[in-house]
């Protein structure tokens, strides 16, 4: 290529170039210093900040759920266990179209609206690469169905886990309660970090009360993850610590016997060991299957339970506040003798009714009992006797003796749902009804028809105290705990105090209660006369609806307005082993139920384990037959 020659002044060009070079070298050095400064800033000054960010990127803590503690009865029969189960879980991060995927899943596995809404709630709480359950406890068929279609659902997995199971189903729900899927409200009540991997939480009953004992401590695996969230390796592992196992004071055999005795009834029964306060049985009927709630109950099933007139979800044993009916009389009788308002041999005449004065309304008695002393008044449940005596002593001593037995107060048993009952006082009446206390209120209270209310649990506890002649024990459901290290934490019985009354007062009242069963006119003579053990008891019939002087004819009254029957008893009289309180709504069955339960406990001392369950019906059938026949003879409990 020919080129035009240009004259170049070489030394001048060289000088010009070298000047320029100096400037450029200067710029290069400045730029190099800028880079160096930047690197120094990032790597030395800001190093701690970026180090944390780097660790946040690559190190992840994966919580591992602790195994929930098991629940046993007093004889070591398992009441709540953990069974392996499969759940369907979704990693939202790895699913392209979440709502489409869930719809598609719904076509092979039935997903309830609740499953979906719980999933979306969780979704907001967790990070998108966490695995979230959409359906717990898949049936084997569902597992198979999903496995065949698995290729259609990237990011959806079947995960094996443990799920709570109650082998006794309905029988123990009134004690155990149940666990259910954890929700945001539950999380506010616990240490959220400890529940990072937990899907279930105790919702009611023992499961709720002992939640912090049963749950255990969450474990953590520190893992290294890559940018796509895949686990690369485990860096360290802190194993989860299982919850404590709990042994309840409940005798599952007795509980089952009570439930079958109360089949078809709406009511409650509580049985307590008087010498310790340990609750042997606590029943509320009708019962329901807690396992439904574990799986995540369908809205339809829940509505059915919730709206049922039978109110299965209502735990009558601790929340049912029943009028005492005549069971209140034994406590009044104690105060009558102890406070010298009367003597045991003082006799009144009962014409079958009572009037406070000439102008007063008539207070009816069930029958004309004639001449009645204290023991007979208990035996025949003479209302007139207690009308006269209660007027004599006034309301304050009545309130005092009831309060001494703990009525109107929480028992503080290990159930959060408990209600206290009520001891009505003039002060209470003024406060709630803005009305003063009339003598008629005292009369009504004296036969347990007024405003006085008790739960079956409190009534059973008071009966136990009575049987122990004033020694009060705290009712308890907890026998002992066993830690994962097999350390046994016994839960000793707690003595609340002693009600100090005259020995003769205890004796006469208990005599009266024995006569209820054994006496010729005893109100429970029909049910208890042939018992091979000694029993002290008191019946009660609470009016649900005032007939205003009309004669009460069972068949004429609608079912829900029929009288409630109440029954308290303890046996044996010397060295009492069991004290019970029974309340049956709108049916006179309480004494029948009580007899069956006492028979089971005192005669079949060997407590049946689950394996022997088959033997129960034969035995129960026999006794049911005899008692039913007796019941047909008529009821006149008052």
């Amino acid at each position, binding site marked *: 290529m020919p080129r035009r020659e240009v004259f170049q002044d070489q030394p001048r060009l060289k000088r010009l170039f070298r000047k320029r070079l100096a400037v450029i*070298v200067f710029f*290069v050095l400045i730029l190099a210093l800028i880079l160096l400064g*930047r*690197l120094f800033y990032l*790597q030395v000054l800001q190093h701690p900040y970026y180090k944390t960010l*780097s660790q946040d*990127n690559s190190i992840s803590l994966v919580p591992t759920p602790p195994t929930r503690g098991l629940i046993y009865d007093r004889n070591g029969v398992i009441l709540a266990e953990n069974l392996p189960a499969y759940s369907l879980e979704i990693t939202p991060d790895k699913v392209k179209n979440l709502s489409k995927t869930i719809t598609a899943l719904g076509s092979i596995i039935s997903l309830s609206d609740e499953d979906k809404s719980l999933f979306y709630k969780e979704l907001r709480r967790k990070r998108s690469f966490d695995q979230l359950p959409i359906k717990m406890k898949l049936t084997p068929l569902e597992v198979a169905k999903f496995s065949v279609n698995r290729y259609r659902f990237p990011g959806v997995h079947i995960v094996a886990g443990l799920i709570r199971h109650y082998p006794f189903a309905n029988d123990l729900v009134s004690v155990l309660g149940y666990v259910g899927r954890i929700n945001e409200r539950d999380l506010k009540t616990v240490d959220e970090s400890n529940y990072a991997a937990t899907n279930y939480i105790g919702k009611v009953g023992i499961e709720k009360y002992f939640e912090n004992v049963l749950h255990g401590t969450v474990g953590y695996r520190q893992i290294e993850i*890559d940018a796509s969230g895949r686990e690369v390796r485990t860096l360290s592992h802190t194993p989860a610590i299982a919850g404590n196992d709990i042994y309840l004071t409940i005798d599952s055999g007795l509980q089952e016997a009570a439930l079958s005795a109360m089949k078809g009834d709406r009511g409650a029964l509580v049985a307590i060991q008087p010498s310790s306060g340990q609750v042997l049985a606590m029943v509320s009927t009708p019962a329901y299957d807690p396992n439904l709630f574990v799986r995540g109950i369908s809205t339809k099933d829940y509505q059915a339970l919730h709206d049922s007139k039978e109110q299965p979800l209502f735990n009558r044993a601790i929340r049912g506040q029943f009028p005492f009916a005549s069971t209140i009389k034994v406590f009044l009788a104690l105060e009558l003798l102890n406070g010298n308002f009367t003597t045991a041999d003082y006799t009144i005449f009962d014409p079958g009714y009572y009037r406070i004065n000439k102008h007063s309304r008539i207070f009816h008695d069930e029958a004309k009992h004639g001449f009645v002393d204290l023991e007979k008044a208990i035996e025949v449940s003479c209302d007139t006797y207690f009308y006269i005596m209660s007027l004599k002593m006034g309301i304050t001593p009545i309130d005092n003796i009831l309060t001494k037995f703990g009525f109107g107060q929480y028992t503080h048993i290990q159930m959060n749902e408990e209600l206290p009952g009520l001891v009505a006082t003039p002060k209470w009446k003024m406060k709630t009804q803005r009305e003063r206390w009339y003598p008629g209120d005292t009369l009504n209270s004296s036969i347990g028809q007024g405003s006085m209310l008790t739960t079956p649990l409190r009534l059973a506890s008071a009966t136990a105290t009575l049987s122990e002649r004033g020694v009060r024990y705290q009712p308890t459901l907890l026998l002992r705990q066993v830690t994962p290290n097999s350390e046994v934490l016994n839960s000793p019985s707690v003595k609340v105090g002693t009600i100090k009354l005259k020995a003769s007062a205890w004796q006469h009242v208990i005599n009266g209660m024995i006569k209820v069963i054994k006496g010729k006119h005893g109100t429970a003579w029909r049910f208890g006369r042939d018992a091979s053990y000694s029993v002290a008891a008191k019946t009660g019939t609470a009016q649900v609806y005032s007939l205003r002087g009309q004669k009460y004819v069972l068949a004429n009254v609608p079912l829900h307005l029929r009288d409630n029957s109440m029954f308290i008893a303890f046996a044996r009289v010397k060295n009492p082993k069991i004290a019970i309180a029974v309340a049956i709504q709108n049916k006179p069955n309480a004494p029948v139920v009580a007899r069956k339960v006492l028979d089971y406990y005192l005669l079949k001392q060997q407590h049946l384990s689950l394996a022997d369950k088959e033997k129960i019906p034969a035995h129960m059938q026999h006794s049911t037959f005899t008692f039913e026949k007796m019941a047909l003879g008529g009821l006149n409990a008052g």
Partner: protein
Amino acid sequence: MQDSNFLQRLNSQRKQQRKGIWQFLHLDPQLLIALTMIIAFGLVIFTSASNDNHAMVYAQVSRIILAVVFMFVAAQISPSKYRVWIPWIYAIGILLLVIVLLVGHTGKGAQRWLGAGIFRFQPSELMKIAVPMMVAWFLGEKELPPKFSSLLISALLIIVPALLIAKQPDLGTALMIIFSGVGVILFAGMSWRLIGLLFALILLTMPILWFFMHAYQHNRVLTFLNPNRDPLGSGYHIIQSKIAIGSGGFFGKGWFNGTQSHLDFLPEHSTDFIFSVLGEEFGFFGALVLLILYLFVVGRSFRIAFSASDSFTRLMAASLALTFFLSVFVNIGMVSGILPVVGLPLPLVSYGGTSIVTLLTGFGILMSIHTHKSMLKGYL
């Protein structure tokens, strides 16, 4: 006195002898050693960055060997030959760029490659040295400082390939070519007043440039201004890169211990973002060592330019050195978050054949300038 005189003479004689061997091979030992160290260090980093992917390491080594051969050959050719060839090389480069735009392979949304398999190469990389050499060739024969007409022609020589490359689209390389071409003009002695004027003009045309940019380029610039604007999208690269570098600390996490790169948080960790791997695994200390090696190479190249015998070789040598430094600066500045992400490799370290071959060929030309000059002197 005589002894020391003798020693001095002996010393210079020995130097002469040693120089003689390098002179014969047309190589510059200082440049050679520094480049070897950079390449060796680069391979160490690359092995980790590729996650010990043997196929990739072998591919990289074979490219380096090819590039070294190119460097040796380039060093043997005297500058007078380049003077003849440069316009042709430049013309062929332009032609290839046009062909790339018509039939090139598409990679990552841009048409940059020609050929197939091992012969796949990026003409734009070739232009990184062809353009400054062409401008040096053009201005080397002119009276300096250049006249306005010469400046206009030089600008045309720069802008035509830059536009072709920007059309691929590869804005980073286009800008690099503009910088290195303008560098030559700077060395040629363009008046500072004119430079200031040009700078103002560029600032004024920025909004117009913005108008012509692709959406992804808009994103890059916006992301550069605020990486947290879209931390999982376009800001992700720079955020993760800064975490990688910053978490390295002073001495780094150690070879193969970088979590950012090995767990795939850091994207493009064997190509454009390989410096972040170095920063994470070898820390500030490692980065300092590499930077010093780069600066030594740049300094040595400027030294060669300083002592070059004529205008053409001076401008060529200086512009090659400046292009090399700017490549280093833009890449490190980009991965450390002081410049926008423009997708330029780290010279001699990043995965990619064309870049290494072009760069080492450039250093071969520098060695040629240095070694042929002295020979000429001897003849004169």
